[in-house]
């Protein structure tokens, strides 16, 4: 069973002549341990797909399953709990709270979920250590570089053993080297059993994924097949 499953998901805004299909007939399955990239131009429905997958928005039709549970059949509180405990989000703009330190930002989701401040902080430190950010724990967001802020945001997204990671242009504002660091972090999160979906228009970022899904006008039009080993490049590499 896949961790995330979308069956024939569509989302329509407006009615009659103003009707807009943001996404249509989306089928998508994401397994634990795998990183999927959704590529498409702006306006192709990438962000809508992500907000529906994370239960922030309801589809007009179709079904979403997370860990085998149908979101349609889940109560409002059930969804809120799912968002706190299972789903982590990473946005382009980091969305860190300016008045909190890195470790306070990271441990906030646990505190909101009723875990004691002390325990939350310990868990926050553990995640920051895992991501080589322990020495930044007591800094405030404006004392961190863009790359560090995004790494803190990823730490916040995976804390508490959440295993569905949804990222919207996670390195949009970063340079190539920092973008690479962010993707390496997402991949290492996947190696611990997390399922991740990254939406992006950037092919270099998407190429870190196990599978790339192409979105056009709200529909999945194509996807990559599992690439052969990288060794094949060296045998057939370009000749001088």
């Amino acid at each position: 069973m896949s961790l995330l499953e979308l069956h024939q998901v569509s989302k329509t805004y407006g009615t009659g002549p103003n009707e807009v299909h943001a996404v249509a007939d989306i089928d998508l399955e994401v397994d634990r341990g795998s990183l999927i990239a959704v590529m498409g131009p702006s306006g192709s429905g990438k962000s809508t797909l992500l907000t529906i997958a994370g239960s922030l928005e309801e589809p007009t039709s179709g079904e979403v399953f997370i860990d085998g549970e149908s979101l349609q059949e889940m109560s409002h509180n059930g969804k809120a709990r799912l968002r706190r405990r299972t789903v982590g989000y990473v946005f382009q703009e980091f969305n860190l709270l300016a008045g909190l330190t890195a470790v306070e930002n990271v441990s906030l989701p646990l505190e909101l979920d009723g875990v004691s401040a002390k325990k939350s902080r310990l868990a926050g430190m553990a995640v920051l250590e895992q991501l080589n950010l322990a020495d930044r724990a007591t800094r405030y967001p404006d004392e961190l570089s863009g790359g560090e802020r995004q790494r803190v945001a990823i730490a916040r997204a995976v804390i508490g053993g959440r295993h569905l990671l949804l990222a919207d242009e996670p390195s949009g504002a970063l340079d190539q080297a920092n973008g690479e660091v962010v993707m390496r972090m997402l991949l290492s999160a996947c190696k611990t059993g997390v399922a991740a979906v990254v939406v992006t228009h950037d092919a270099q970022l998407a190429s870190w994924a196990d599978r790339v899904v192409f979105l056009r006008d709200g529909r999945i039009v194509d996807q990559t097949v599992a690439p052969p080993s990288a060794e094949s490049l060296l045998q057939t590499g370009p000749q001088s």
Partner: protein
Amino acid sequence: MSVKYALLGLLSERPKYGHQLRQEFEDKTGDVWPLNVGQVYTTLQRLERDGLVESNRADSEGSQKRFRITVAGERELAGWILTPIDLTVPPRDELVIKVLVALDVPGVDVRNVLQIHRRYVVELMQQWTRLKDDEGQYDFRLALVVDAELFRLDSVIRWLDAVDGRLKRDASEPRAASTEIPILRRRLAVRK
């Protein structure tokens, strides 16, 4: 062309044997461009003929020649390194030509042509990225070669996306009536 200068570069460190040059070339370019030993010796012969390297058979046992760079060779190498490579003429890009041709072939969905290439290029990029992830962390030179390839392929994707965007806009807005004068100007510019 670049093999000639790569060999001069390797010889600028110290005199070397032919087989050694081949090994070092492959090591230092991340093993991405295999070089056969025949190509190395042909290039060395030409360099020797042009007075850019010289060989000394006497100081080696067997028949192996050892090559050293000459003063003229050093000058040639320094000139090459500091001269910008020639990028004035656009390369005859098969993909660009293919898309331009496809626009006029009846029954062809150009957006499908774009997607076929987009997927193929992204799959290639996945392989290069995996190579960078596996080995590029330990091999600085390989990481540079892989970055160059990823940027090149990325520019292909960006162009495909740009064509997609133009096709979409073109379908919703009628095209400008006459393009004759700009075309004339363009021809002149390219011929210059």
